[in-house]
């Protein structure tokens, strides 16, 4: 009798071992994933003062439609839950809680803006839900020690500012610099990187620093002030519409400094054309992604794929809007992460895969890759300088970043 009990127990033990832990056909799921679908939650400002960025969310949705039409990821379809926070952090908190507690999404994807992301960072890390590929260039999103569930995406503003500073120190070490920046986290982050890059010389080289608000109708007054400072280098930290105003005004008042323009506003179609192409000759910026309005990419394979995608899946989308390229590219990044996760769709594995990326994407500039590691939560770091020649951006110099 004892023997029978012993054999029964042994058989049970073997059976349990066989069923539980071998690598073959092992599927692990967290809320939001199962055999059929993966629920991806995203929060973007579709209404309110930052609604121009809402098209990123739409482009992401269109790309997921494409992926689903082509069979999904490892046989699973993507269920995309797109919520609107109106760029109001209080609303972002509510939407994040909705995604985690009510919709039970696997992860929160590409939330946009520094204050909205700050509002939900602690909550998502407490709940151990990935806050993946955050849509802002603020430097604080690559901090795996303190916030292991949060990861940035694009090159940080500070890194970009440092690149300009390095270039100025190389080419014009005795320059007098004037800075125009938006009075918020984005503007200040750029400025910090720039000043850090100049080091001790920042205080002597920067002769004028002026801010503007998004609610200001124009920046004309600020441009006049900057010209009056006698500077011969201009660092222009403005969003697209103000950038166009600044470029136009500089030309109108006859100020021709060496003009460094932040990458956010470097679109040929949305910024330089309204500003007047002749006025923009000589402007320097960095780039990591292809500008859809730049004629040099017309025959590029990646660009043509993107246009085909837009025409089929987002026909009402604006082909001149760089945000649609951004959304397309970041969605591709997520798809890569999910593909790498295979059948282990736990949140922990998603973060692990996000921290093991090493790919290139078709709309990124040649030489720019997406690379992460356990201590490197900055996926895209490489950028290159480019100069405007009146028709298109011409890349020059080396590729910065690791």
């Amino acid at each position, binding site marked *: 009798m004892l023997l029978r009990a012993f054999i029964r127990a042994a058989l049970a033990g073997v059976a349990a071992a066989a069923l539980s832990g071998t690598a073959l056909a092992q599927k692990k799921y967290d809320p939001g994933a199962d055999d059929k679908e993966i629920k991806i939650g995203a929060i973007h400002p579709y209404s309110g003062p930052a*609604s121009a960025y809402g*098209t990123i969310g739409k482009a992401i949705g269109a790309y997921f439609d494409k992926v689903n039409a082509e069979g999904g990821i490892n046989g699973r379809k993507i269920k995309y839950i797109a919520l609107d926070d109106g760029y109001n952090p209080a609303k972002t908190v509510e939407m994040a809680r909705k995604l985690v507690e009510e919709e039970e999404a696997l992860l929160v994807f590409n939330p946009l803006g520094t204050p909205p992301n700050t509002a939900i960072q602690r909550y998502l890390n407490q709940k151990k839900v990935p806050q993946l590929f955050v849509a802002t260039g603020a430097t604080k999103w690559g901090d795996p020690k303190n916030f292991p569930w949060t990861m940035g995406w694009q090159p940080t503003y500070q890194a970009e500012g440092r690149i300009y500073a390095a270039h100025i120190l190389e080419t014009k070490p005795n320059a007098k610099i004037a800075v125009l920046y938006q009075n918020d986290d984005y503007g200040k982050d750029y400025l910090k990187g720039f000043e850090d890059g100049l080091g001790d010389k920042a205080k002597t080289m920067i002769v004028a620093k002026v801010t503007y*608000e998004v609610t*200001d109708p124009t920046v*004309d*007054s600020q441009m006049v002030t900057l010209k009056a400072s006698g500077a011969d280098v201009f660092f222009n930290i403005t969003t697209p519409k103000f950038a166009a*105003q600044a470029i136009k005004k500089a030309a109108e*008042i006859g100020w021709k400094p060496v003009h460094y323009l932040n990458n956010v506003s470097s679109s040929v179609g949305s910024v330089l054309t*309204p500003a007047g192409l002749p006025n923009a000759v000589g402007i320097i910026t960095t780039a990591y992604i292809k500008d859809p309005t730049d004629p040099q990419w017309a025959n590029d394979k990646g660009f043509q794929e993107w246009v085909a995608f837009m025409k089929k899946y987002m026909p009402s989308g604006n082909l001149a809007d760089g945000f649609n390229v951004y959304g397309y590219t970041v969605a591709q990044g997520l798809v890569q992460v999910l593909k790498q996760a295979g059948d282990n769709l736990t949140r922990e594995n998603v973060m692990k895969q996000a921290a093991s990326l090493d790919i290139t994407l078709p709309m990124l500039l040649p030489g720019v890759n997406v690379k992460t590691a356990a201590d490197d939560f900055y996926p895209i770091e490489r950028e290159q300088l480019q100069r405007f020649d009146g028709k298109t951006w011409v890349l020059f110099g080396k590729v910065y970043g690791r």
Partner: protein
Amino acid sequence: MEGFLHQVFAGVANGCIYGSVALALVMIYQATHHLNFAQGEMATFSTFIAWALIQQGWPYWAAFAVTVAVSFAAGLVIQRVVLRPVERAPVLTNVNVFIGLLLIFNALSGWLFDHTVKSFPSPFAQESFLKTRFFSAHEMGSFLVMMAVLLALYAFFRFTSLGLAMRAAALNPDSARLVGIRVSWMLAVGWGLAAAIGAVAGMMVAPVVFLDPNMMAGILLYGFASALLGGVDNPFGAVIGGLVVGVLENLLGAYVIGTELKLTVALVLIVGTLTLMPAGLFGKRVVTRV
């Protein structure tokens, strides 16, 4: 000195923007004694209509003319349909209706024309003869357009019988009715004119600040400040108020308090004007009999 002059003239250019919005506000106030909070959004919507026409290939001035006409008609219809039922209602009711219109127009602009920032062409080419040392061609052009609108309004009110009837209806509706003026229709015409002026303002502003549904959000408050400063029932005052506000904003921002408190300046200006000089610079002093 050159810098200072540039600031002043940049302020004048901005002031033209504020002044044209203030003109529309004053127009409605003169006709109905209400301040239209939805003025900015209506102007934005009109500008979108113009943009859509231009996208379809219409020449600029044709689109301009059609937009002004459509806006006039729309303003008329809005007054007849939306505002007439609450004509005699208390102020709060009217304010709520205006806010409601503001929300509706903003939502419509966003829904029909999406939120991407669009550029709007200026009829005044950058290198045209209008360009001077301190003003760009467009700035000069918008200034001239605004003066033309102002003079046309003045002539309309002073020398036409319709204008006279409107003034009568605003000043003393009961007596006006007794002489056969259809007061309700005068209010509607007032709204139509204000909507048309708003459309012009929008089309002059859009090339500078770019077109998106929230275009007027930053400007409306300065428009109010200008209208109140100049005297809310005086069109000339509105224009001058606009110029003063524009220059003041720039000078204070550049030399005194920095660019980070501009909205506070507007707030102080509004509260200050209303408490110290309620009639504004050029308005009529109102005395109520108890």
